[in-house]
C-alpha cells in the first residue's frame, strides 16, 4: 500500500522554502530526488539531512522528491517531517531539530506589548530575520494568514522556527486556529519555547479554559504560557470581562475589527465610529481584569502617517499596544506610544516626590500643594519605564539629574 504526502510550496519564484513530496511504500528502499537552486553549494548537506530525518522517523521505504529554493535547514526539516506525517499520521519523530541554546528566557506578565508583528506561519522567509526589528512581540500565525491546504505543514515550520530562530528580545507568540484545529496546533508547538498564545475569535470564557487546559496537559498546571484572547465578535465583546478573567494565564485582550464589523452588520471606516463601543468595552474589561488592552493591526503598510494617527488614537483611548504586518511599522508604533516630553517631565517629578515621601516615611505623596494619589504614582512609574524603553530617558536618570 502506498501513502502520499506533501508540504511546502512549489514554483520558480519560491525562495528560502522548498517543496517535499513523498510516497511511502512497503519495499524498495529510499529513492531520493533533489532539485535545488543551491545544489552546487549545499547538495550534499541537503541529501544527508533528508536521509537523517527519514531514519529518525523509521521510514525505510519511500520515494521522496525535494524541490528546493534555498531553504534553510530548519525549513527543510519541517517540510520533510510534515510531508511524511501527512503520508502516515502514525509516524513519530524521535529527535527534533536541535534548538538554539540560551533562548529559553521566560517572559513577564507586565512586559511591554506595544508592537506585535504578524508573521505568516507558512512563510519561512519572513520569519528568519524577524527578530532584528525590535518588535515587542512576534506572532507566528497559524490562522488567517495560512491557506487551509498549508495549515498542517505550517505547524511544523512554526515549531522549528520557535526552536531555531533568534527572536532577540521579542516575546515569542503563536496565533493558533479556532476550535479543535487550534488545540491540535498546540499539540505540535508545545513545548517549544512559546511565550504567549493568541486565541482567535473568542466568545466565551470556556474557549480560553480549553486552551489553558490543553497547555497544562503538555506542560503542567503552572505552565507559564501566557494567553491573549482576541475579541472579534459582538458576543465576544459582550463577554469580554469574563474572557479576561477566564484564566490567570490571560495577560492581555486583543481586538479584531474585520470580523466584528461584519458581525454587527456594518463596514469598517477610517474614522472607526462603528467599533467605538467594542474598543472601549475591551479596554474597560481588560483594565477591570488587570490585563493589557491591545488594539488591532493597521494593515496599510504604505500609509505611515495613517498608522501614526491610528496609534495616537489607540493610546488616547487606553490601549497599550498595536498589531502590525510589516517591520517598518514597528518604529512608528513605538514612537507614537512613547510618552511625550511633558508626560515624562511630569512623571519624573511625581516619582521623585514619591521617593522623597518614602525616604521621609510619609504616607502621602505631595507635589507642591497637590496631593498625589497612589494610582497616579503607579502611572507615573509606568511612564518613566516606558520612556526608558523608548530611549527617551536614561536608565540612571535619578542620579544623573542630581549630579547635574
Amino acid at each position, binding site marked *: 500500500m502506498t501513502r502520499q504526502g506533501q508540504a511546502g510550496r512549489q514554483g520558480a519564484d519560491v525562495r528560502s522554502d522548498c517543496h517535499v513530496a513523498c510516497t511511502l511504500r512497503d519495499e524498495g528502499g529510499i529513492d531520493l530526488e533533489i532539485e535545488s537552486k543551491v545544489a552546487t*553549494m*549545499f547538495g*550534499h548537506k541537503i541529501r544527508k539531512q533528508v536521509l537523517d530525518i527519514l531514519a529518525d522517523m523509521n521510514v525505510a521505504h519511500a520515494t521522496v522528491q525535494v524541490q528546493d529554493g534555498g531553504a*534553510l535547514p530548519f525549513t527543510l526539516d519541517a517540510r520533510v517531517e510534515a510531508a511524511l506525517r501527512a503520508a502516515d499520521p502514525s509516524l513519530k519523530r524521535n529527535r527534533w531539530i536541535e534548538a538554539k541554546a540560551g533562548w529559553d528566557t521566560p517572559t513577564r506578565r507586565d512586559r511591554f506589548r506595544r508592537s506585535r508583528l504578524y508573521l505568516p506561519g507558512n512563510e519561512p522567509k519572513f520569519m528568519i*530575520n524577524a527578530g532584528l526589528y525590535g518588535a515587542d512581540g512576534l506572532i507566528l500565525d497559524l490562522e488567517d494568514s495560512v491557506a487551509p491546504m498549508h495549515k498542517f505543514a505550517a505547524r511544523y515550520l512554526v515549531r522549528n522556527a520557535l526552536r*531555531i530562530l*533568534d527572536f532577540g528580545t521579542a516575546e515569542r507568540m503563536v496565533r493558533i486556529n479556532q476550535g479543535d484545529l487550534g488545540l491540535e496546533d498546540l499539540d505540535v508547538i508545545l513545548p517549544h519555547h512559546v511565550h504567549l498564545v493568541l486565541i482567535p475569535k473568542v466568545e466565551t470564557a470556556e474557549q480560553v479554559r480549553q486552551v489553558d487546559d490543553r497547555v497544562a496537559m503538555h506542560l503542567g498546571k503552572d505552565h507559564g504560557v501566557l494567553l491573549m484572547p482576541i475579541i472579534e465578535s459582538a458576543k465576544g465583546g459582550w463577554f469580554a470581562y469574563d474572557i479576561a478573567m477566564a484564566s490567570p494565564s490571560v495577560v492581555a485582550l486583543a481586538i479584531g475589527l474585520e470580523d466584528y464589523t461584519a458581525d454587527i452588520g456594518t463596514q469598517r471606516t477610517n474614522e472607526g465610529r462603528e467599533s467605538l463601543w467594542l474598543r472601549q468595552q475591551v479596554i474597560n474589561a481588560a483594565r477591570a481584569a488587570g490585563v493589557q488592552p491591545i488594539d488591532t493591526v493597521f494593515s496599510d503598510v504604505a500609509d505611515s502617517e495613517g498608522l501614526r494617527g491610528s496609534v495616537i488614537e489607540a493610546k488616547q483611548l487606553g490601549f497599550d499596544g498595536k498589531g502590525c504586518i510589516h*517591520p517598518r511599522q514597528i518604529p512608528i508604533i513605538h514612537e507614537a506610544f512613547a510618552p511625550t516630553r511633558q508626560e515624562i517631565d511630569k512623571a519624573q517629578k511625581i516619582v521623585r516626590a514619591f521617593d522623597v515621601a518614602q525616604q521621609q516615611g510619609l504616607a502621602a505623596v505631595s507635589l507642591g500643594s497637590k496631593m498625589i494619589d497612589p494610582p497616579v504614582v503607579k502611572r507615573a512609574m509606568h511612564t518613566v519605564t516606558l520612556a526608558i524603553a523608548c530611549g527617551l530617558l536614561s536608565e540612571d536618570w535619578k542620579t544623573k539629574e542630581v549630579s547635574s
Partner: protein
Amino acid sequence: MSALVKNAAGRLVPTEINGKPAVPYQGVHQFRPSGRKAAPPIRSCADYPADGNKIVGSLREALERCGVKNGMTVGTHHHFRNGDFVANAVMDTLADMGVRDVVWAPSASFPCHAPMVRHLESGVMHHIEGSMNGPLGEYCSAGKMRGLGVLRSHGGRFQAIQDDELHIDLAVIAAPTADPFGNANGVQGPSACGPLGFALADSLYADRVVVVTDNLVPFPCVPWQIHGQNVDYVVVHDRIGDPSKIVSGTTQVTRSPDRLLIAEYIARFVAEVGIMADGFSFQAGAGGITLAFALYLKELMRKANVKARFIRGGSTKYLVDMLQEGFTDYILDGQTFDLDGVRSMREDPKRHLDTSPFTSYNFHGKGNFASILDCVVLGATEVDRAFNANVVTHSDGVLLHGIGGWQNCLTAKCTILAVPSFRDRIPVILDRVTTLCGPGELIDVIATERGIAINPRRQDLIDAAKRCTVPIRSIDDIADEVNRLTGGPPDAPTLGDKVVAAIKWVDGTVIDSVRQSLNC
C-alpha cells in the same frame, strides 16, 4: 595557456592574456608603470569635409570607410544600460560584412546584449574584454569563449587604453544628440541618458570613431560632451536605445525590510562616527540598499542641519532632490540612473556636473575624485573574514556581473559594503571569497542586517564607533551566526582547471582569475 603564478594576494593568475604578457597583482599602489601613454594616429583636417558634414548613409558604410579587419577590437559603451541598441547593431553589421575574431570591449554589458552569444558561437566575436553579464558570463564560465575574458573596472578600462594594453581599433559611440560634425551629448533628445563619460577615452584614443545618433541637430550641438574633432563619421538611426530601460531595476529603493535595515544602520553609522559633518562628501550609486541609505542619511542631515559639499552619482531622483533641497552644493556625476538625473544634468549644469573615469577613477590620472570622498556605499556578491570582496561571481563561481566603478571607489576614506548576511541559504561572509575583486585593506566596513563589522585595520573607526547606537560586531561573530543558520558554509564550487577570465586590478595587474565552471 601560460603557467599560473601566485600573486601578492595569494591568488593564482596567468602571466599571459590572449598572447600579451600580464603582470600579477603586487599589492595596493605597488605597481607603477612608466613610459609614455598611448596615442591615437595622426590625422589631418584636410582629410575631412571642410563643411563639417561627416554624415554617412549607414552604419555599414561608416564601418566600411573606417576599415575593418579580422581580429579588430571594437569599443562600445553602456550609457543606455539595458536599453542599448547600438552594440548589437555594430556586431550584426560586422557579421554581415564577414569580419571574424572581433574583440568586443564594452564599458559594460547588460542582459540586452545576450544576442552577442550568437556572434561568439559563429566566430564573429573572439572574446570580450570589459564586463560579462548574465548569459555572456555563463557562456564564458562554461569555457566556451575562445579567448580569455578580461574584466576591468571603469577606471581600469581607461588605464588599459592609456597604457596600450587595450587598443581600440574602432569605437562606436551611441549619442542621444549629435551634429553633423560629430559633437555629441547625452542630455538632450528622445534617448537622453545623461553623460557620455564612458566613451571619452575611446573618442580620444581609438583609431576610428563613429557617432550614431537618433537626434541630429544643426551644428553646434551643445554641450559637446564628445568633441566632433575626434569623430570620423556620423550615422543617423531611427532609434539608438530604449530610454525606459536606462532606468533599470537597480534604481528602485528596496522594499525588503532586511535591506532597509542595512541602509538605516549605515546612515546612522555614518552620522554617529562623525563622517556626516558640514562639507562632507559621499557616493551612493544604484542598488536598492544604497538608494535607501541616501534617503535615511538625508533625514539625519536634516535633523543635524548638515550640508554636503558634493555627492558623487550615478545620480537618481533621490540625489537630485537633495541637490534641489540644499543638502549638497554639487552632484559630480559619472552616469545617470534615472530620467530625473538626466533632466537635472541638462537643466542645472552648474551644480550637477558631468564627470568621466578620467577625473574620477583612472589610475594614470594625477589623482582621482574617488579617493577624496569621505565615504562610499557599495554592494558585493561575497565578502570574507579578511574583508576581501567579490563582485563578479557568486559562490557557485559563475561570472554574473561586471566590476563597474566598484574597484575604483574602494579608495574612498571610508568604504562601506552593504550586504545581506545571506541570500536564501547562501552565506555572504565566507572564509575566502570565491573570486577576489577588492583587497580587504581597502574595505573599511561591512554592513549587514545583523550588525556592522569594522575592519580591524581601522582602529580610528573602531574608536569613533564606541558610542554608536548601531550594533557593531566582529565579522567572525556575524559569519558564525549565519553559518549556524545555513547549516555551515557552502561547498566550494566544482571548477575545472581551465582559466576562462582574468580579473584586473585598477592598475592593470591581475588580481584573480576565474576558472571554468563544471555546472554551467
